[in-house]
């Protein structure tokens, strides 16, 4: 049985073309679903597998789909949108799938679109992913020529068109309602929910937005079923997961492993452990918007529920390592600088608060902080938290800040007391 459904076709010399993808069992799921299953049955299989969204939130994919209006009275057209706006610092997993097996994504798109009976699908990619654009575009064209996309697919009467949309670079477009605005050619500000996109999304029509990795899981779930999918995992959160490591590890990278693989196995066995002369101090487990974990969490199983119980989030599953040769204040400042820049400006706490946090952190890092600054930072962690801003950007931004202030407080205090960054002083001393 297949144990690496997401990456089994990925080769160093480029992605499989249509014929090779079909020889590897590709588009079997589309034949099976469109010819023998109703859209409701496809949705049920995905619900039974308990596939949870791989973009970071972990919402059950089948449940999300089941809120789309179905039947002859549903508004038309309906839309399926691929969220390929991978912009969260430390996240590089969807790039692997987009560049490595674009037909797997296209097949997943057709299955999801069929399940909600969408007529049009857009693959929304971040503007810098030019290799992915070329490969996904080619896969779509091959699939269209083979009759998997277009009118009356495989003689079933189902019509679907698929287009690629290249974005122009804003992190907030990863938020699904902001992505919908961006796709409409507007500023990527998030929309108020409700109405949810399933009811009123792109141009007011029913719309599903799914992450790349989520969609790539569908073909094998349809062919091999829920029990197989659940059996891939070491915990009750089914499937495999793309896990990544960046920072000062010996061999940073991204790997498909059973859901629930421990932090220690990912860092030590797959990433080769820390570079010589570096010790691990902290782990951002799933992209820049997740709370720090500590070396004491190394035996934590990386799945949605377990990481949440430890006070953080699985997020995208791509972890960033903080080592003892790197200043935690500078590290958090880099994260906050990103979020302050990427705030869409729509709501005041985020637009005004994050730059203030950035300036405060910069002052501390430059040796110009004072004792009151930590209270200012604590205040922002509290008032930019969940439920107090228009969308999840600011709460995500202050997740590593709040946990960083808790775990590395003595480093912040030392910057303020010494009026300089201890790591910069070390460098200066070494250089003589």
């Amino acid at each position, binding site marked *: 049985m297949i144990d690496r459904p997401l990456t089994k076709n990925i080769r160093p010399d480029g992605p499989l073309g249509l014929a090779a993808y079909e020889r590897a069992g590709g588009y079997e799921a589309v034949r099976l679903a469109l010819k023998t299953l109703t859209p409701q049955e496809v949705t049920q299989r995905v619900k039974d597998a308990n596939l949870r969204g791989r973009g970071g939130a972990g919402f059950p994919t089948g449940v999300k789909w089941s809120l789309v209006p179905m039947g002859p009275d549903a508004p038309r*057209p309906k839309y399926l949108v691929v969220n390929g706006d*991978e*912009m*969260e*610092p*430390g*996240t*590089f997993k*969807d*790039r692997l799938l987009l560049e490595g097996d674009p037909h797997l994504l296209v097949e997943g798109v057709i299955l999801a679109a069929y399940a909600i009976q969408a007529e049009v699908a857009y693959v929304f990619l*971040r*503007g*810098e*992913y*030019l*290799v992915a654009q070329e490969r996904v575009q080619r896969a779509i064209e091959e699939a269209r020529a083979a009759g998997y996309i277009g009118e009356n697919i495989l003689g079933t009467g189902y019509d679907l068109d698929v*287009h690629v*949309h*290249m*974005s*122009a*670079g*804003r*992190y907030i477009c990863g938020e699904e309602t902001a992505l919908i605005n*961006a*796709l*409409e*050619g*507007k*500023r*990527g500000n998030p929309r108020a929910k409700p109405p949810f996109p399933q009811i009123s999304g*792109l*141009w007011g*029509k029913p719309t599903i937005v799914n992450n790349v990795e989520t969609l790539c899981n569908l073909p094998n779930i349809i062919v091999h079923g829920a029990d197989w999918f659940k059996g891939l995992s070491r915990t009750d959160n089914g499937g495999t997961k793309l896990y*990544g*490591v*960046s*920072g*000062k590890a010996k061999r*940073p*990278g*991204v790997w498909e492993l059973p859901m629930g693989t421990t932090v220690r196995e990912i860092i030590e066995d797959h990433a080769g452990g820390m570079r010589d002369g570096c010790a691990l101090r902290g782990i*951002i487990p799933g992209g*820049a918007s997740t709370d720090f974990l500590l070396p004491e969490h190394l035996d934590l199983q990386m799945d949605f529920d377990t990481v949440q119980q430890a006070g953080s989030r699985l997020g995208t599953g*791509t972890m*960033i*390592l*903080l*080592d003892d040769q*790197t200043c935690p204040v*500078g*590290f958090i400042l*880099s*994260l906050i*600088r*990103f979020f302050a*820049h*990427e705030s*869409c400006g729509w709501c005041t706490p985020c637009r005004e608060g994050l730059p203030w946090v950035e300036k405060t952190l910069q002052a501390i890092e430059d040796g110009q902080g004072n004792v009151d600054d930590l209270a200012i930072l604590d205040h922002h962690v509290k008032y930019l938290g969940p439920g107090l801003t228009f969308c999840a950007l600011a709460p995500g931004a202050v997740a590593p800040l709040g946990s960083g202030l808790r775990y590395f407080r003595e480093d912040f205090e030392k910057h303020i007391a010494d009026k300089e960054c201890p790591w910069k002083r070390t460098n200066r001393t070494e250089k003589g």
Partner: protein
Amino acid sequence: MDEALKAHIEAEARLYERRSAACIEALKLVQRRNGWVDDENIREIAALLDMTPDEVDSVATFYNLVCRRPTGRHLIRICTSVSCWTLGCESLIAQLGIKPGETTADGRFTLLANQCLGACDHGPVLMIDDDLHRDVTPERLGEILAKYE
């Protein structure tokens, strides 16, 4: 804007329920041709896609990849996000001798600080025009830049 460019934008507009959805692609196509997007381009795109110039400009100024000011012959987008920061992007910026937002005196390079480029396992990374360069070291930087005249 010449006829070929207009035809390209027209083809994009047909992919969407409303024409205005093509404005981001239109801005990028114009930039690819001219290096940046000037006020006249904004008015032309607006006329083509049934938008007001202010609507188009509100979009142009929102997105990181659209330049509303002239740039050098080549655009360097260096990733300054946390993984590349940890791995030393700041020393590469120092080596380039210009700050993000600046252009070299000979007009050859404009440097922009970019958000995470999604290649964190190969940091530090930077893009020059359409090319991604991974595992960039101070030693390799000169040799990489030499490819861009």
